[in-house]
């Protein structure tokens, strides 16, 4: 990993604070800040100065922010550094990080700021030792993430685009390295056609990535409870209040079981376990299929009871099934009289209950605050690393697309194939990083597997 290019990362825990910080270190830091930030006063911040203004992506305002500038070597990493302090939550830091990467920074490896700080003599050996452990642990996590998260179709699609690039490269290379076998020659038209195909695939991949995957990584909340306690009303209440935002999200999945809302900038995927037939058996109450799966997947369970009916036996059976998860109680139907002994029964269950009425929205605000509070105080572990991994993958796709675009432009301008192969090699490498593969002999292997050449 080079140590004097420009790196960037979100340096505050995602979603866990009122402020989010995107940190940039390296020779381009100042230049990136100039492009991305418009200060209110019109002045650039000097060394150790703070300016208030807006983060701009072209003509769009991404967020209001404070920009600080520390000139190397008098900074943490001993390089030029800028920090964007923007609104907390997920959306803002993510969009700023993406912008900064587009402007030339590279996503930092876990611990890389500290690594630079150490290598540039800013921190001592014992501190560095600690970082070393951290890197080891974090990298394992990231590797797990790279292979684990990219399950199924996405990984297959990246691989298939990558294979096609390799196939095209092999066709080009064989005609370069074995010119006497001119029956294998590849024309500019062939190259262009193949590049356009790959380009199309990558484009739709990026689109679907933007739409589905990232949002899919939001905090998963399952609504659980016996029938008729008002689970669906609660879902509707949460969703209705957030309707405007939901409508803004392109391609939000709208199946019956789940809805997306935004809470303090953090996407929530709310899964309703309603619609299960009535039964004495607790397992069947929740349903063995999707409902249990939803609970298992959930980062947080909203445990709904009817305060006018008290905690019934059915309620207790449901509780047994969800109690392993972080949970928040919703004591619904506060417009009715509370059953005597209800509060004592709640205390016995041992989680916090919010008194509310889903029908008229009473207590809804308090419930949302409570969810956020649990999230921010760490009661729920929604891995920041997972989001991080995703942005990294997206950056890889963007980079690959840029290289393929360059190859397309080259093929259109009829430049020679050895130049186009430079762009294809870049694209191949970028895609390889997404799926955690970096193989240097692939191309040579492919040439000999596909073509009959040699003296």
């Amino acid at each position, binding site marked *: 990993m080079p140590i004097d290019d420009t790196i960037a990362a979100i340096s505050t825990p995602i979603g866990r604070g009122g402020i989010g910080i995107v940190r940039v270190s390296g020779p381009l830091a100042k230049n990136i800040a100039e492009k991305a930030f418009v200060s209110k006063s019109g002045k650039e911040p000097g060394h150790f100065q703070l300016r208030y203004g807006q983060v701009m992506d072209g003509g769009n305002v991404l967020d209001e922010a404070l920009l600080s500038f520390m000139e190397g070597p008098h900074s943490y990493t001993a390089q030029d550094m800028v920090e964007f302090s923007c609104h907390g939550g997920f959306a803002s830091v993510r969009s700023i990080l993406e912008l900064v990467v587009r402007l030339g920074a590279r996503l930092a490896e876990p611990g890389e700021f500290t690594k630079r700080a150490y*290598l540039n003599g800013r921190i001592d050996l014992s501190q560095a030792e600690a970082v070393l452990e951290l890197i080891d642990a974090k990298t394992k996590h990231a590797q797990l993430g790279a292979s684990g998260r990219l399950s199924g179709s996405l990984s297959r699609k990246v691989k298939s685009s990558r294979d096609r690039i390799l196939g095209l490269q092999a066709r080009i290379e064989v005609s370069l390295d074995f010119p006497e076998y001119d029956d294998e020659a590849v024309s500019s038209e062939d190259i262009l056609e193949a590049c356009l195909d790959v380009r199309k695939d990558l484009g739709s991949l990026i689109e679907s990535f933007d739409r589905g995957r990232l949002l899919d990584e939001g905090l998963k909340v399952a609504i659980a409870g016996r029938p008729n306690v008002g689970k669906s009303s609660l879902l509707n209440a949460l969703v209705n209040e957030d309707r405007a935002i939901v409508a803004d999200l392109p391609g939000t999945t709208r199946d019956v079981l789940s809805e997306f809302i935004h809470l303090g900038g953090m996407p929530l995927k709310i899964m309703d376990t309603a619609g299960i037939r009535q039964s004495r058996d607790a397992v069947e109450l929740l349903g063995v299929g999707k409902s249990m799966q939803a609970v298992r997947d959930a980062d947080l369970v909203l445990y709904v009871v009817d305060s006018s009916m008290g905690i019934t036996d059915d309620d207790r059976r449901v509780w047994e099934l969800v109690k392993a998860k972080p949970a928040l109680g919703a004591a619904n139907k506060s417009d009715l009289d509370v059953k005597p002994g209800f509060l004592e029964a709640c205390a016995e269950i041992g989680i916090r209950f919010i008194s509310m009425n889903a029908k008229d929205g009473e207590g809804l605000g308090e419930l949302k605050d409570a969810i956020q509070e649990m999230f921010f105080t760490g009661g729920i572990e929604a891995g920041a690393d997972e989001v991080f991994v995703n942005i990294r993958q997206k950056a890889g796709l963007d980079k690959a697309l840029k290289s393929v675009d360059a190859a397309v432009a080259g093929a259109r301008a009829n430049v020679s194939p050895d130049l186009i192969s430079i762009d294809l090699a870049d694209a191949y490498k970028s895609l390889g990083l997404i799926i955690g593969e970096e193989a240097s002999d692939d191309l040579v292997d492919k040439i*000999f597997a596909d073509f009959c050449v040699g003296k």
Partner: protein
Amino acid sequence: MRESGSWDAIVVGGGHAGCEAALAASRLGMKVLMFAISLDSIAMMPCNPNIGGTSKGHLVREIDALGGEMGKNIDKTFIQSRMLNTSKGPAMLSLRAQADKAAYSRSMRQVLESEENLAIRQSEVTAVRVDDTGKVIGVETEYGAFHRARAVVLCCGTYLASRCLCGETIIESGPNGLRTAKALSGCLRELGFRLQRFKTGTPARIDGSTIDYSKMIPQYGDEWQTPFSFSTDPGSIQREQVLCYLAYTNEATHEAIRRSLDRSPMYSGAIKGTGARYCPSIEDKVVRFADKPRHQVFIEPEGESTNEMYVSGMSTSMPEDVQEEMYRSLSGMESCRLTRNGYAIEYDCLDSTELRLSLESRKWSGLFCAGQINGSSGYEEAAAQGLVAGINAARWILGKEPIIIKRSEGYIGVLIDDLITKGTSEPYRMMTSRAEYRLLLRQDNADLRLTELGHEAGLVTEERLIKVEEKKNLIEKETARAKKKALSPSVELNALLAERGSTPVATGIFLSDLAKRPELSYQILAPFDSDRPSLDPDTAEQVNIQLKYEGYIKRQMDQVEQFKKLEGKVIPEGLDYNCIKGLRVEARQKLSSSRPASVGQASRISGVSPADISVLVYFIANMGKA
């Protein structure tokens, strides 16, 4: 044992690696003795009769820039020359020449003989001797003599415990009927080297007077021939070009092969060595690419003083009778006579990862290895290593740091780094696809890239260096001027553009922007560039390339900068990887056995992940401070 003389350096083997090694060391002032199994086989070309080709041509140019001999020797002895890949981009141009094999060998021998510090001796070397401190002290020969030396360079080619296979016939010999070197192979094993078994092959030779060339397609050389050596005057080498011919195999050929596959040592299991994928035998091609109705075959002369023709593309180890049948199945060869059978050859070679980038053994100091003994294949690959090993053997004797060419500096760097860092499990051939910075590593600029290093090594004269420096300055100055030069639209300019099929211009335009158009060039625009200095064609072409490919060149240079930073991080010799916290077990093992010299080299070892590299960088940075 009888002691017979003392030398600075001994070179074992007189092939392409041995010749370059012996010449380099002796030209650096060392007293050198070169052994060859037969003095008639010095610089012999036992397989194809050509020098150069894609990426190999680059190697020859680089050898020349560093002060080696191969380029000069082929310039003296070629009989046909072609610049390949003229339409595929500047990095792909490759020079290939057909050699007169006998003349090439004779001419190289004359060069060796005229070298003051160099002695030549015919004898099989049976052992390398070392002392208790792990230092090489000399070699033993089959005649029971011990020759003392401070450094030994092994360039044994394919002779180590070699055997040749042709159908059911197996002959314990080196290539072309020469003797095998069995004893040395055993000695190397005793010295603790891991040996591998590789295989390669060659086609039959045909009596050219029995071929009907009218049924084949003639292959012409270039009208104006380009020399390999930067010091050869192009005007002095122009000559009449001999012809090669293109022919094709057909269904009858393939049928003859398929019918007798069980008699092929390749398929009967007689061959144990690993063959190279880029050099498949014709039986391999027929089996692996069964759907191809025909394969290309080039008929190439072995020299001007013989009728023998080489059949490129049809290397084989089929039995003699099948060989006759299959060669005669080609159109124009119906009644051809074989002069020599094709055969496969198996031989021992080293595991090249046991060497340093200087090509010195990690275990035995003063022992250098070059060429096919290192698992490579090809005359040019061998010569390149021989040159580096010869230079570094001399430097070792003189107590100087070795010369190491980086991957970003030359194909030679890629070749040696691949062999040493990654190792090879089949005979290794140079390919342009192996060079990640190939746009910068062109055959046309090998002099600009490596003359300085050649001068530093001591093989290039001051005069030649100054000439190259002048050329460099001129290119730089002219490129800078041309970049700023704007052309105004004129009837004449637009007429030229129209003639070239290029879009006309309505406003002023930078010359460099026009030169970037594929259909135009810096040279073509000369009439509109009034203040252009007069430049020789080579220099003008360099300026053209700089202007034309500016963006791509810049990107590759940026990549090289990143690459160099990691290469610059030196790993201390003898570092104990087992005490580095955070390295994965696999990485520890790989690093411990490969012992890379730099972090960059470590990053290219398979099984070492980017995370391991991070950990390593830390650890090394810590070491000084702990």
